[in-house]
């Protein structure tokens, strides 16, 4: 088995398990009794999707998918900070 077949088979085996855990995060996102629970679920989901895009960039042989992964990781951090600021003071700056 050469490298290309091995990598493709490995990613094909790994992606369904990532999909299962992503769907469990979505269950928490919908159930989430409080707002911070939902924010936490969205965080985990977006970090998951950024890993997903890195693996898909190898799987589909299209390297430009990785650009989206970087901005997703940064977006999750911005969401954290804005949500925390809103929860503390009920305002997002003057």
């Amino acid at each position: 088995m050469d490298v290309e077949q091995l990598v493709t088979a490995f990613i094909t085996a790994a992606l369904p398990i990532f999909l299962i855990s992503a769907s469990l995060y979505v269950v928490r996102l919908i159930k989430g009794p409080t707002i911070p629970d939902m924010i936490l679920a969205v965080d985990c989901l977006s970090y998951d999707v950024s890993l997903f895009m890195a693996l898909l960039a190898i799987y589909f042989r299209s390297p430009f998918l990785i650009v989206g992964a970087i901005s997703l990781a940064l977006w999750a951090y911005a969401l954290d900070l804005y949500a925390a600021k809103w929860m503390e003071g009920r305002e997002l700056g003057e």
Partner: protein
Amino acid sequence: MEQLILLAGMALVAIGVFCDLVGSIGLLRFPNFFVRLHAATVGTIGGAAYPLLGAALMAAACDFLGSARWFVAAGSILTAVIIILTAPAGSHALARGAHRMGVPVEPKVCDLLEEDRGGRR
């Protein structure tokens, strides 16, 4: 040598798959928000940052991607470093905001932060 790098990358991604599943089950099953933060750490650092380093190693060993494999590897390493630096800071800010907001801590053994602030959030 390239096969060794490929195997190391695959091992990191496999560990990440396991950690991600454990983190998502913990996020679903744990009783309150502050305990769920612990499961979320397993899901982000163990389930996203380390597998991204593994994906970088895998991409560096993939000859069939041509010279674009270095682009994928560098992007994966950059994303992993961003997650390692920002995920702890973000979750600390979120925990502070949630405690100030009055998110219930149930079941509670002791809440020293609430006692320090004189019983108010």
